[in-house]
């Protein structure tokens, strides 16, 4: 049974789509809103903002997060900034330009209408955040400061030091706490969603495990919203927080919500290289470093001299050489792939040979050390803390790392999945970034979804849908609870020999090698063969100690890794089927003679939405064709 992908994109010119759609949507009478309840899973920029806004509108909201407080969601770690088409700098920015840049940056694999809406709303987000007291950087005259970021030719990025994500999240968190205080949101911290409840073909609730008491319980509502972030941790090592996982969208997938473009994973070029096997996560440094740092490697292979002993003539500033127009500011995927390439050539630096220099010597000459400290002081401090090297004296070493995942649950223009009633927002959905996300756009999308899109579209869904009243005693709830309890029991009962982390590392390593920065048919086929055997061993040989009715961090991890072991295979399948290179998905077989990504618009200008076909069956591919009216497809070129 193939699902029907109805994108619900409004007819007519893309510039008017959102306005028209807002008028066409049905409204819930203000007095009736309090009769509806909504479950929001996740409390980051998308989930937190959505919870607060829905509550402000009058809905009864239950919000769930696995952390001990909603303030800790991983949006908090975003450093660089948030884009908005304000044109405050008078440098020629406009909504259309942000829209255009985002579609192009996404390598023409995003929906035009979604991206245009995002660009339109970007300006409201800044206004909203300012009004909430987000301490954005200011000019001396008191106006908002901007910087150019991640390859943009205009300065449209708003920032709060290197902690923009933190400040925007705290803004949403404070709005959320206000609603909690007013009793409009019931907050469930340290609760993990373990399954979705579907009744009469509609998402009506979730089953959660209280991570402190271990109690498994059902929560029901009129609609369910997932804002649970990305799946980058499938690679084990990523810049994501340790707890980030795919469980919620994977469970939803198994209940009928198609997963789109899982192979679109973003690699961030400026991370601190791995130091050893003990490594538990990778640390990203803001891409803004590329504004002033120069990236280079030695010209010669295996040059082990200290960087300061390598003369200028024997250095290869490869990005500046290959892309004279953009230089060190090429998009993330281009920067990352080039780093991999020079390391593959044996010109990588550092003990592992997996690293390139990011050198601030010129910037220090130009701006003085104080000037550099002013701009990047906190990042330099962080680098020194981790590596024990002083980046004011020695060039930084950087290497790409998994950072963001563009793929996610397929959603229509209303942010609703193929499962009616289930809405998916923020990084968890697939929507706005296509095959590659531009810098400073993640915060924009999360907040756009949470503050300004979902609150309208969910009203339309509720107003148009007749929903029976249900309680957590519904037989379906009990059935799903029993399944969840069954899985817990199973995991605790295996009594094998290997730790959960050892399986996670094994899976991650395989995926990083076969489905990481560059992919090919042979490698992906191999991974697709290997993953089931890791999965099989996991279910026979994993060792999870302790009980289900207590705080049990091994058990939590085990459940997440079990889902990664299934999801990883789908990701590889998607990567294998997409026989082109686009954005974060680089297939070695498909490149231009200069080694650039080679898209195949004739055959692959579509969204690949994978549908669950049942245990042990190959997933079904559904295609949503992408149409471009406002922008012309071009080969990206940053030469």
């Amino acid at each position, binding site marked *: 049974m193939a699902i029907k992908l109805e994108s619900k994109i409004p007819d007519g010119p893309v510039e008017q789509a959102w306005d028209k759609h807002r008028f066409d949507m049905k409204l819930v009478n203000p007095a009736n809103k309090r009769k509806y309840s909504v479950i929001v899973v996740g409390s980051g920029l998308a989930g937190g903002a959505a919870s607060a806004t829905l509550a402000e509108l009058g809905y009864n909201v239950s919000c769930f997060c696995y952390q001990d407080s909603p303030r*800790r969601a991983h949006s908090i770690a975003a450093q660089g900034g948030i884009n908005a088409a304000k044109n405050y700098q008078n440098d020629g920015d406009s909504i259309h330009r942000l829209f255009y840049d985002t579609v192009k940056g996404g390598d023409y694999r995003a929906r035009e209408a979604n991206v245009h809406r995002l660009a339109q709303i970007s300006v409201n987000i800044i206004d*909203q955040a300012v*009004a909430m007291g987000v301490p954005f*950087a200011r000019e001396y005259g*008191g*106006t908002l400061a901007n910087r150019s970021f991640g390859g943009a030719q205009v300065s449209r990025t708003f920032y709060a*030091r290197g902690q923009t994500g933190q400040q925007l999240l705290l803004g949403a968190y404070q709005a959320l706490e206000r609603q909690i205080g007013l009793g409009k949101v019931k907050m469930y911290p340290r609760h993990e969603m373990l399954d979705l409840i579907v009744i009469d073909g509609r998402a009506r609730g979730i089953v959660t495990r209280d991570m402190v008491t271990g109690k498994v319980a059902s929560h029901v509502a009129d609609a369910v919203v997932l804002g649970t972030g990305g799946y980058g941790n499938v690679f084990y090592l990523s810049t994501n927080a340790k707890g980030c996982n795919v469980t919620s969208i994977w469970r939803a997938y198994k209940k009928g919500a198609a997963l789109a473009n899982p192979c679109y994973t973003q690699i961030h070029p400026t991370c601190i290289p791995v130091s050893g096997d003990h490594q538990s996560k990778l640390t990203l440094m803001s891409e803004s470093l590329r504004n002033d740092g120069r990236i280079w490697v030695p010209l010669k292979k295996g040059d082990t001299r200290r960087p300061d002993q390598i003369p200028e003539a024997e250095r290869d500033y490869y990005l500046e050489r290959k892309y004279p127009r953009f230089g060190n500011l090429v998009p993330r995927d281009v920067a990352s792939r080039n780093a991999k390439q020079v390391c593959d050539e044996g010109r990588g630096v550092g003990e592992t040979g997996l690293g390139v220099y990011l050198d601030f010597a010129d910037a220090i000459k130009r701006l003085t050390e104080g000037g550099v400290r002013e701009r990047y002081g906190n990042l330099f401090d962080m680098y020194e803390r981790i590596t024990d090297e002083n980046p004011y004296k020695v060039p930084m070493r950087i290497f790409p790392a998994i950072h963001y995942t563009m793929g996610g649950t397929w959603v229509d223009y209303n942010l609703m999945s193929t499962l009616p009633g289930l809405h998916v927002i923020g990084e968890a959905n697939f929507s706005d970034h296509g095959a590659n996300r531009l810098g400073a756009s993640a915060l924009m999308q999360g907040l756009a979804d949470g503050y300004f899109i979902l609150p309208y579209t969910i009203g339309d869904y509720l107003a148009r849908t007749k929903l029976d009243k249900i309680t957590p005693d519904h037989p379906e709830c009990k059935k799903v609870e029993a399944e969840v309890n069954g899985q817990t029991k199973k995991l605790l009962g295996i009594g094998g020999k290997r730790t959960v982390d050892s399986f996670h590392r094994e899976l991650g390593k395989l995926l990083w090698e076969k489905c990481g920065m560059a992919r090919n048919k042979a490698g992906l086929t191999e991974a697709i063969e290997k993953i089931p055997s890791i999965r099989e061993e996991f279910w026979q040989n994993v060792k999870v*100690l302790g009980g289900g009715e207590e705080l049990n961090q091994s058990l939590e991890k085990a459940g997440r890794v079990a889902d990664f072991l299934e999801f990883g295979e789908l990701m590889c399948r998607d990567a294998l089927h997409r026989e082109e290179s686009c954005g974060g998905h680089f297939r070695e077989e498909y490149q231009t003679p200069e080694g650039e990504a080679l898209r195949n618009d004739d055959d692959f200008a579509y969204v690949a939405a994978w549908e669950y076909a049942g245990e042990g069956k190959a997933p079904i591919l559904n295609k949503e064709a992408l149409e471009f009216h406002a922008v012309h497809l071009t080969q990206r070129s940053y030469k």
Partner: protein
Amino acid sequence: MNIKLHVWRQKNGADAGKIVDYDAPDISPDMSFLEMLDVVNERLITKGEDPIAFDHDCREGICGMCGMMINGTPHGPRKATTACQLHMRSFKDGDEIWIEPWRASAFPVVKDLVVNRGAFDRIIAAGGFVSVPAGSPPDGNAIPVPKMNADLAMDAAACIGCGACVAACPNGSAMLFTSAKVAHLARLPQGQPERDTRALRMVNQMDAEGFGGCTNVGECEAACPKEITLENIALMNRDYIKATAVYRKERAGGD
């Protein structure tokens, strides 16, 4: 490196708990403190012993989830560094390390090193916000903010809510945390309409949660991984005193 650990183990809130000693041989100086605990836990699991529960998430010093007393100071010996950003090179081969949870009645122990910091959320819920629903606020540049004020607000807003200040304070006081939010919003024009009630509500909630009073010893400032300063506490005291002086009952019929 070989390290000897003395770790607080407590099964749950009802358990009495005790210090348990562990040997941690072959530790790399490049490991973060939490990676060292990961390794210890992997070994414990392999031996069939319950791993040490500790809170952590982003591991890059911004989420505020991790936090434990390391050799008698919150987040360990390095200035302006969270436990996840502390590296084992800060210790020497043969060192003994004492690890305990935050201790405060307002932060009850959940298990081992994991505590419940819900009190902080309730303090924010009491008034740590600007009441402006999503909608049509004025243009961002319609509210000019002097750069200095924006910078000072940002200094205070950098708080990650980890609880180190409470853990460090000999009185278990939450003044640094509470004042950081009061000061962040007090420094900005957007925070002015609710400035007085915010100070009153947040301090009232802070007291209701059972935190102790401030005796201005400065341990919180020294322990804060984000270097929030005592100046914020003075500002909150000032606001609280003023708010008390000018307080009037809300009029009926108000929102």
